[in-house]
């Protein structure tokens, strides 16, 4: 039985059923299809995982679903490839995906476009599975573009609001920039290697004789693609705006799965990056910059979802740092723990927003711990996990990243570690600030809102509990060791081994310092924070405006492009050249016809005269020319 194909096809079936029949067959049908098929896909993925494990775990499952095209002796197959890395990704995508589908049945209960929502969500899962299971980069690229489409559709889900529709467009267009790099990398690989199958690409680069192409060039081109999808500097601007979509969508697409596609791509093609130290350095630097930049912005954000969005950017930056220093398995480890705690945080935020009837500003929250206890406890667990408090999941993965950033023989340096540690401090600070301002400080809600606060129904709170448990215990699974034969780990520089323990202790201290700082400043409410903001006004303004990146892009990219389009392409090209020449031709024909019509005098005799004159002219001409 073609299990892998089944995994991919199930959500597609869900999309078709919900998209075509959903609005007619009602909500129970939509919920059953929308949640049932992803859960079935998850079960199939578990079965595949057991099959791989049963055969020792070394041998991947490979399935050719369809022969797409054949040119001469080269053929493009839609083939699926299931090794341990794909297994981890598939289980995250289908598992967390299913949980979020279930949560959505509560969150979107009263939305008029319920069926459309689930259809899009299933479509997203389909493309995401295509992305992680595809053996060929081509299939992966189809999934890559597809998740971009699904993301666009879901960000702009409430498209009646022009601001939300614009956020969708921004995400789509920013991603195009990255996709251009991805495509160029694809062409380059195909041109030199003649194959796009990822396992063959890796083995070609790991062979004793290197292929005749610069690994760094290929690596950087593909990383540009990863940058777009995973929202790294300078293509990060779309992710905070993407929070315009429904909150479960932010949890699934813009935190747990889709934005990690770039991490997956780089990890999957580690064969290239092992031979591309320059590209790896670029990745590490971009990752560290993004981690630091986003964490500093998150410190001053006041929208609960924006804080989490910048936190996602920052955590993705961590993953890229790990990739850049050659610790591929560690990056996937953080991806895996991040999927749990960030999904839990976003869904918890959704639960808060749901309870408060749409309020997202943390300055107007507070004191929710007693009112919605389940949400509070799960949110607190996930917060502690992301802040790196032991023994929760985030502690293990973040600590490993910091360790490799410090010690890796391929690109590790104390500077990277220092940036990572400062980021960890800020992460801990802004997450506990969020926790305190939302749940623990005295209430700042209006009477009206406070009166309506209610705990979410079981289909939402249950999901929160499951994710909180996973965020708590997820770190005990040693993903890097588990993946070692797929994703080789960087070696630590020899004499650094004895630093491991002090660094570990240090990162715990960092996390606790962040916690203490947050309590000190925000433990009683907003007042102290405002005093600080007033003292460091310039810095505060810089951070609140996200370093003015959007404004810079507008001035440097949007304005010149708009000017060129408006004045040159529209004014000169379209209006003057194209319209002008067409209108000119039409006017010429009209005027010529006006002149010619004077020949039609209405006098038959004149016509005869003309005919005779013409005939005589013809005769004379023929006579003259023999």
């Amino acid at each position: 039985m073609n299990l892998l194909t089944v995994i991919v096809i199930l959500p597609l079936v869900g999309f078709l059923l919900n998209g075509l029949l959903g609005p007619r067959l009602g909500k129970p049908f939509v919920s059953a299809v929308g949640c049932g098929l992803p859960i079935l896909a998850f079960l199939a993925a578990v079965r595949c995982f057991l099959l791989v494990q049963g055969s020792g775990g070394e041998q991947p499952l490979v399935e050719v679903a369809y022969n797409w095209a054949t040119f001469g002796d080269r053929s493009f197959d839609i083939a699926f490839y299931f090794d341990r890395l794909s297994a981890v990704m598939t289980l995250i995508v289908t598992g967390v995906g299913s949980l979020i589908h279930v949560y959505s049945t509560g969150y979107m209960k009263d939305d008029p476009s319920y069926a459309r929502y689930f259809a899009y969500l299933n479509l997203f899962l389909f493309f995401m599975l295509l992305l992680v299971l595809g053996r060929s980069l081509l299939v992966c690229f189809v999934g890559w573009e597809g998740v971009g489409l699904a993301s666009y559709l879901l960000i702009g889900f409430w498209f009646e609001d022009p601001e939300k529709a614009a956020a969708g467009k921004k995400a789509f267009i920013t991603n195009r920039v990255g996709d251009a790099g991805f495509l160029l990398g694809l062409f380059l690989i195909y041109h030199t290697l003649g194959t796009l199958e990822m396992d063959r690409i890796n083995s070609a680069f790991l062979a004793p004789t290197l292929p005749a192409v610069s690994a760094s060039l290929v690596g950087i081109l593909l990383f540009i693609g990863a940058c777009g999808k995973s929202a790294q500097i300078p293509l990060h601007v779309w992710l905070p705006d993407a929070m315009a979509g429904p909150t479960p969508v932010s949890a699934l697409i813009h935190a747990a799965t889709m934005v990690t596609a770039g991490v997956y791509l780089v990890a999957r093609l580690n064969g290239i990056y092992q031979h591309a130290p320059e590209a790896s350095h670029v990745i590490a630097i971009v990752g560290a910059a993004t981690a630091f930049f986003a964490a500093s912005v998150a410190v001053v954000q006041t929208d609960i979802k924006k804080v989490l969005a910048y936190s996602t950017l920052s955590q993705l930056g961590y993953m890229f740092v790990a990739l850049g220093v050659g610790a591929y398995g560690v990056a996937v480890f953080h991806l895996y723990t991040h999927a749990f705690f960030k999904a839990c945080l976003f869904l918890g935020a959704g639960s808060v927003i749901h309870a408060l009837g749409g309020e997202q500003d943390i300055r107007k929250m507070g004191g929710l711990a007693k009112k919605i206890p389940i949400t509070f406890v799960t949110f607190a667990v996930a917060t502690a996990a992301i802040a790196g408090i032991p023994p929760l999941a985030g502690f293990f993965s973040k600590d490993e990243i910091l360790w490799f950033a410090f010690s890796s023989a391929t690109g590790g340096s104390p500077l990277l570690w220092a940036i990572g540690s400062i980021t960890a401090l800020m992460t801990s600070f802004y997450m506990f600030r969020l926790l305190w301002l939302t749940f623990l400080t005295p209430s700042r809600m209006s009477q009206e809102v406070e009166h309506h606060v209610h705990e979410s129904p079981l289909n939402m709170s249950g999901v929160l509990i499951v994710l909180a448990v996973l965020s708590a215990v997820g770190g005990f699974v040693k993903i890097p060791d588990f993946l070692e034969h797929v994703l080789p780990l960087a070696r630590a520089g020899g004499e650094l081994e004895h630093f491991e323990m002090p660094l570990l202790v240090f990162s715990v201290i960092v996390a606790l310092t962040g916690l203490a700082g947050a309590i000190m400043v925000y433990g009683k409410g907003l007042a102290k924070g405002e005093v600080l903001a007033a003292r460091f006004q310039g810095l505060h303004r810089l951070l609140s405006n996200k370093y003015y990146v959007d404004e810079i892009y507008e001035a440097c990219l949007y304005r010149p492009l708009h000017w060129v389009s408006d004045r040159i392409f529209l004014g000169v090209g379209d209006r003057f050249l194209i319209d002008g020449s067409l209108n000119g031709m039409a006017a010429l024909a009209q005027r010529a016809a006006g002149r010619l019509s004077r020949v039609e005098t209405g006098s038959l005799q004149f016509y005869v005269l003309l005919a005779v004159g013409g005939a005589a002219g013809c005769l004379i001409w023929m006579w003259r020319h023999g």
Partner: protein
Amino acid sequence: MDKSQLLLWVGIGLFAIGLVGVMIRRNALVMLMCMELMLNGVILSLVTFSQRTATLSGAVLVFLIFVVAAAEIAIAIPIVLLLSRQRRTLDVEAYSSLKG
């Protein structure tokens, strides 16, 4: 001047009279008759040439032209009739509503 040359001159004369008639007269019926005259001038020259070169195909062509001319006039006369019924006149100047 031999006989065939004379006949050719007669044909040319008929054609010229018809042509002038078409060009200067305004009565639609007279114009039609003049057109027949031109046709007859052409037919006469055709017969003359066919006699002179002793080929039969010219004579055959003449019969064909008779048939076609009969058919043509059978359509032209009713058109003129209908026109005159509409405007009560045969003057072609009255029918110039399509002029530019």
